[in-house]
């Protein structure tokens, strides 16, 4: 609201596209720093792969934040769900079940355990009328505590020798064998530094699929419309005939389900669950990605694609800092600065 329309429209632009600008700048910086090494497919895949878990959490967090809430318990749900699932699986293997069945049931327990935890969060918030911040702060402490108790603060090693690790480590190879020159096969396609086919991991594929589904849900479905309406003004949503409680409950349930899925992917990748280490501070990384992506923490506005770019930005920062030899102790400071900067740029021209 002042005479300088020029600066005004620049601000408008940054509000909407700032996250893309930041991504491009960071991309350019990485390229400048590393040259073509950065564009290396293996490097890229490594970055995507290591961030897909937090990415899935961030996608779910976007929905929760759009509804006007927050979920601080996601990291603890990840570890609890993984602990429950892996323990169940080990027990079944011990009870002479076939390994495949044990893995399937254990995986199901992990995902459904996450869903159950999300439903507990949602019920406390909707029926117990506890503020989301407080209810999920309780979950943050309680869910991890249960996981620690199950494993006596230790590690739960998977007893599965083959099937369990497939989800976390497997993928679709991006190269195929074109010729077999004696002992050594010849591949065409993308290879890793060891000359073997590069795999597009299931983790990455699941992250992409979930992001696409969530973006659709948010922007094109009735549930998404209701999420936005509830987040923008809960009272007005109630007056408009929306079942506000049911909408919010579903947001936390979806978040829990995705956290359970993340738990499954992570435990499968490690082939074990470290109850003191898995998922720690994942909630902060997820919230940071959502905020960087331009979703309003006040609710009522959000975009999943922004969150995905937010995840990539955080991943690239870690990547570039690690490659430049910056001490990991300093990386938090840089990330923190980026988060605050993102909010500054996007806070908009409020009157």
């Amino acid at each position, binding site marked *: 609201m002042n005479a300088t329309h020029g600066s005004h429209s620049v601000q408008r632009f940054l509000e909407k596209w700032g996250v893309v600008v930041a991504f491009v700048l960071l991309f350019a910086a990485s390229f400048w720093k590393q040259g073509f090494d950065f564009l290396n497919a293996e490097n890229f895949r490594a970055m995507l792969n290591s961030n897909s878990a937090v990415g899935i959490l961030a996608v779910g967090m976007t929905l929760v934040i759009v509804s006007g809430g927050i979920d601080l318990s996601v990291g603890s749900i990840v570890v609890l769900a993984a602990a429950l699932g892996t323990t169940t699986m080990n027990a079944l293997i011990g009870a002479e079940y076939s390994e495949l069945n044990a893995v399937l049931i254990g995986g199901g327990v992990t995902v459904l355990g996450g869903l159950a935890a999300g439903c507990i969060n949602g019920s406390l918030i909707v029926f117990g009328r506890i503020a989301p911040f407080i209810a999920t702060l309780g979950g943050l402490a309680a869910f991890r505590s249960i996981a620690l108790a199950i494993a006596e603060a230790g590690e739960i090693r998977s007893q599965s020798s083959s099937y369990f690790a497939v989800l976390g480590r497997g993928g679709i190879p991006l190269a195929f064998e074109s010729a077999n020159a004696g002992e050594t096969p010849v591949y065409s396609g993308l290879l890793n530094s060891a000359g073997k086919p590069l795999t597009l991991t299931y983790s990455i594929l699941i992250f992409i699929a979930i992001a696409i589904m969530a973006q659709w849900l948010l922007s094109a479905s009735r549930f998404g419309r209701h999420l936005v309406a509830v987040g923008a003004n809960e009272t007005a949503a109630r007056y408009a*005939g929306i079942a506000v409680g049911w909408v919010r409950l579903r947001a936390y349930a979806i978040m829990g389900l995705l956290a359970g899925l993340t738990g499954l992917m992570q435990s499968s990748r490690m082939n074990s669950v470290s109850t003191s280490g898995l998922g720690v501070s994942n909630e902060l990384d997820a919230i940071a990605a959502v905020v960087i992506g331009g979703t309003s923490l006040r609710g009522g506005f959000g975009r999943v694609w922004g969150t995905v770019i937010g995840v990539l930005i955080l991943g690239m920062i870690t990547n570039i800092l690690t490659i430049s030899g910056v001490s990991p102790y300093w990386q938090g400071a840089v990330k923190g600065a980026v988060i605050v900067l993102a909010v500054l740029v996007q806070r908009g021209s409020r009157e």
Partner: protein
Amino acid sequence: MEHPLSAISDHGSAPGIPRVLLGAERVTVDYPGVRALDGVSIDFRAGEIHAIVGENGAGKSTLMKVLCGALRPTAGSLRRDGRPTVFNKPADAMRAGIAMVHQELHLVPTLDVAENVCLGREPTRLFAVAVDRVRQRARARELLTMLGSDLDLSRAAGTLSIADAQFVEIAKCLASNARVLIFDEPTAVLGEREAARLLALLRRLRDEGRAILFISHHLDEIVEVADRVSVLRDGKLVQTFARSLDGLLCDAAGVGVNESRIATAMVGRELGSIYPAKGSALSTEPMLELVGFGARGRSRAISLAVMPGEIVGIAGLVGSGRTETAEAIIGLRPREGSVRVAGREVAFANPRAAMLAGVAYVSEDRKGRGLHTSLSSIINMTLPSLDTHARLAGLRIDSAGERAVTARWIGEFAIRCARPALPISSLSGGNQQKFALARWLETAPKVLIIDEPTRGVDVGAKGEIYRIIAQLASKGLACVVVSSDLPELIGLAHRVAVMREGRMVGELSREKLAAKDCEERIVRLASGLSEVTQEGAAA
């Protein structure tokens, strides 16, 4: 320090002509694509109530923003006490003694009355470290007494009625020694009695030598209190009326003007009666029937029947339980007694259940409850009826269908909305209200309860909203209109029920509404004066 000009205007003017405290000269404001104000020159004098009227979008709000420093004009200048001045931000205007009493009150709900009055100007002690609570309370008491209010200073602002909160807000302005007070539709949220009290206060502030700027959609109030009336239309100052020596509001030729003359100047054409012809009930079977109904703790023992085709008005002071009763019907509040819709007993758990049974409620609080101001017109329009646009079990919303429905209602109600995908807050109050109504009509209700159908809506849009309501009724809709605007109820409703302190205290039939004394009867019922015995005493 004194500028020669101000000295002249202060002492050199004839005793009858008051001093100009604030003036605008050829002020123009351009928004991208729109000229909101076009060369407006206007002044505000000490000891004068100057009313600004105009339809929504005529430029009133823009002028207010310029005067209180929230907006820099594209061209033109401001003069304070005769000296050219520039306000870069609201704080500059405040320092110059210009205060705005906003439509939305800006009190801190958790602080008490005294703390709110002195907010930002707390008297201090101990080297300005501690708030001097004794002096703070004394100051607040002094200001409130001056306003004729004896509010409890220790009450939290959040517990005050809107009328009391407004007084605190005004006291806050006086605490800053404001000489020019801008009131933006102060009576819009008040009942009859509180409004009268506020108008008396405006007069008192005027008599103390302050300049009062008064914006209102209630032309009767303006004719009652304004010393001068400036009419804005399409950003231009088109006419000014002033009170003559014998107390009549006159135009430049000295001809007396009334409300309809002002309304004509506002819209630039002759307005017929804004109330449509009254139809009649289409059936004797009630569509909505309340028996011994009440919103628990707020109203009780209410019995009312509304037939298809009928418009029943509910009158009563603010706080008489009208809105609460309506909200209890659609399941927003705990209730007692019974509700029947088309003869069937219902107990709605939430507005959605009410909607599915054909009962729609349009809230009085358009900004907070009726609409999502940050969302687009399309989203607002289709929110209650979204199920009709849901495909694939709700996974996809038919956005083409949504746009078509929105366009249809824009056409039907003549809504001025060039870009429905923009936030609905970009529309004027009247156009927002039309959407608030249309979104519920799209759910094809059998019973429509409208709370304050024209609050903050200009004259032109008012007439259209009345026409729409009458037309819907003529097609068989049972309408309940809750309103504080008595002429509106009398002009629109077939019958008017009056509520006081949570009870139904009387009903005026169609014949009684046609009688001359009906407005007085309603006021008496609503305020608890007996109709017969006090008639002589009141005279």
